[in-house]
């Protein structure tokens, strides 16, 4: 890895570097998602607090240092006792401020964690050192993600090796990507353009080259782009269906309950499952993933533990495609 690789990297358009004037550098990040304004507002409030107290303390120090400088003759008589009301004031006032910010900020945070129902699912599989992205239409990209404008996008993220980070500063979006477990994030882009995508969790040698772009397009352009990429691809759930047949899942998991040796997967996603031992779990992505890789971990009540493990046979992308397929299976 040398200069060569670096030179080839294309930084997003709009990068001031392209203007050949390095002094024209930004001081504020782009704001290109629905989150940006909300998070920035909290930031601005906290910055105002920071500036206010820093300046107040700084000025007080300078004022006292000048006024009570040792060479000056000035009245220095004071009781020398601390005053309780002052102590209480400067304990309670900051307390109120931070509690206010806590409530406000936590509300926004909660919003950023819960994707809306109508969000468009997409997948990100990270590995040293690239992001592999895929949408439901089956278009796969590397270190690049195309999304339509004003459409909530829900990303399921998983890593094949170490912990990575998924950060789009312009959207105020960041989520670590863990191996072995799905993490989720979502956003809704509000401005057409191309933005930085960074890996923010240190992941080894080429960490700083694990970067990419996110391109926001008008819905119409996005459709065109999809059509261009789709020609050779199948959709994610079609790919999942192929895997479903290839690995023989279909022989046991039948469409109707009670037909096969195994529970039906139709209508499974998002519903509760009764397990041996009386526990129930919600069939979310994590549960379905575990049931493929480690089927004995949670046995559905009324069934024998006959399913073999698929650990090491299906890769992360395959699992995500299977998930996409299973999610399409509705009750017949």
């Amino acid at each position, binding site marked *: 890895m040398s200069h060569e690789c670096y030179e080839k990297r294309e930084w997003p358009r709009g990068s001031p570097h392209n203007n050949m004037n390095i002094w024209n550098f930004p001081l504020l990040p782009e704001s290109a998602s629905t989150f940006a304004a909300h998070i920035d507002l909290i*930031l601005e409030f906290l*910055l105002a607090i920071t500036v206010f107290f820093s300046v107040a303390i700084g000025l007080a*120090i300078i004022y006292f240092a000048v006024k*009570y400088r040792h060479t000056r003759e000035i009245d220095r008589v004071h009781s020398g006792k601390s005053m309780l009301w002052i102590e209480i004031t400067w304990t309670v006032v900051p307390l109120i401020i931070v509690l206010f910010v806590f409530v406000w900020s936590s509300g926004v945070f909660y919003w950023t964690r819960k994707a809306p129902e109508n969000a468009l699912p997409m997948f990100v599989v990270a590995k040293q050192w690239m992001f592999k992205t895929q949408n439901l239409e089956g278009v796969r990209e590397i270190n690049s993600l195309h999304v339509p404008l004003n459409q909530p996008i829900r990303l399921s993220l998983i890593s094949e090796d170490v912990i990575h980070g998924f*950060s789009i500063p312009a959207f105020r979006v960041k989520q670590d990507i863990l191996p072995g477990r799905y993490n989720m994030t979502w956003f809704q882009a509000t401005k057409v353009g191309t933005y930085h995508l960074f890996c923010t969790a240190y992941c080894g040698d080429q960490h700083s080259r694990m970067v990419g772009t996110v391109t926001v397009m008008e819905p119409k352009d996005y459709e065109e782009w999809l059509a261009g990429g789709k020609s050779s691809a199948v959709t994610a759930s079609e790919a999942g269906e192929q895997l479903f047949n290839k690995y023989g899942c279909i022989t046991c998991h039948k469409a109707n309950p009670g037909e096969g040796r195994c529970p039906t997967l139709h209508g499974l996603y998002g519903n509760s499952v009764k397990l041996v031992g009386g526990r129930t779990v919600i069939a979310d992505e994590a549960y379905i993933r575990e049931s493929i890789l480690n089927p004995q971990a949670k046995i559905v009540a009324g069934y024998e533990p006959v399913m073999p493990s698929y650990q090491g046979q299906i890769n992360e992308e395959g699992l995500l495609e299977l998930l996409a397929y299973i999610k399409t299976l509705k009750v017949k």
Partner: protein
Amino acid sequence: MKNYLTQDISLKSWLLTKDHKRIALLYLISITFFFAIGGFAALCMRLELLTPGPDLLKAANYNKMFTLHGISMVFFFLIPSIPTVFGNFLIPIMIGARDLAFPRLNLASWYIYTLGALFALTAAILGGVDTGWTFYTPYSSTYSNTHVVLMATGIFVAGFSSIFTGLNFLVTIHKMRAPGMTWFRLPLFVWAHYATSIIMVLGTPVIAITLVLVGLERLFGVGIFDPRLGGDPLLFQHLFWFYSHPAVYIMILPGMGVISEIIPCFSRNRIFGYEFVAYSSIAIAILGFFVWGHHMFITGQSVYAGLVFSLLSFLVAIPSAIKAFTWTATLYKGRIYLRTPMIYALGFIGLFTIGGLTGLILASLATDIHFHDTYFVIAHFHYIMVGATMMAYLGALHFWWPKITGKLYPEFWGRISAVIVFLGFNMTFFPQFILGYLGMPRRYHVYPPEFQVLNIFSTAGATILGVGYLMPFVYLIWSLKYGPDAGNNPWGATGLEWKTVSPPITENFTQIPTVTEEAYDYHQEPMPDLPEEAM
């Protein structure tokens, strides 16, 4: 009468000394060495970051540099810095004791530190480690091809040095106080070290066992963090930060103690609200244990845990704020002398305030999404750990230099260097706040070109900061030979350490003193003039 330096000057008497003051000097030399190593690594990083491309270092070497910087600065410089040098030297004298409770254990701590340091240095010389000082799994346990186990061993070993130092301080402060030295007559420096020691004793064992687990996982390929084997990599982060967040308070609390000594002395005023400062140290030490999860808001930790940790993190801000207000209020109607230690102390307040308040932005869940793992975090914790702690460390070095060596440093150069350090520091790290806001991730070896100008500012500032750090190194050593004699109490300060001779005798006091007054018994009286040749 012979003092502790001239009592016996053979090398053997130094290497086998049980005198807390000599052990403090052994530590001073060791940690200065590690400060130099960490500083060198920082210099390499800043030079590399002058340009967006890879120029000076290969990616792998850059990664090793920031790891070396982090490990030597955190584990081998900042954590031991003020406690092992100034705490060791001063706590027994301040409370009116002849030594720490366990002098042999104290010496053993230094040897344990040195052993750990040798492991770490061996790892660095054999090719270094590239995991970052945080050793996140599974990268450290499975994927990294560097000397992780050796380095982890070094930190594991050095951890016991920290545990034994904390234990020694706690026993000493509880059991060795002179007659009349009640808890509320203790200097706040001692309170701060008491709080620090609590963290050392309660926190350090957890990082020790965690590093053992990482080492086992790496050596034998089995363990509890590898997700391929059903492990949870986030558990490592929990265990790691359970120690490493409180460790931040190990680094800052002793500094707060130093500032609480310097400010009253150079404003010739009692400290404002003594009890509040004392209790806030303890509050910080205890609350500091309950906030570790704020390093994991966006790692996949549960949202509920995030809420709890965020709230607790906000609460830690309160005792810290109390301290900053209190120090400022102490200046009111004082008689203020802007001597070198005071300039450092006032700089400390300013930088600590900025560092602390920007911490709120990271404790707040929503804003942390944007700032997590960016240069904003780097800037924030450098304001605390370098801005504040290093200022306190240098302030302490100047304040107690006359006591430790019996010599005065050149005041003029002291003031110049204090101002240079302050300016250089701000120039280095302020641009990094903006870089973080723009989204520049930390630990990046190459970066998008629009970030270059701010990085140039930062590197330029680092150069100035480096000069600021080199100056005391030169003139303090110079003063050992050429500095004028300090006398026993050049600052007209209160506190038992100023009532003994400079440098103190081996058992500190000819007779154990009886304490009859509170700490900081200042009455706006003028400070003694420095001799001409000290200016």
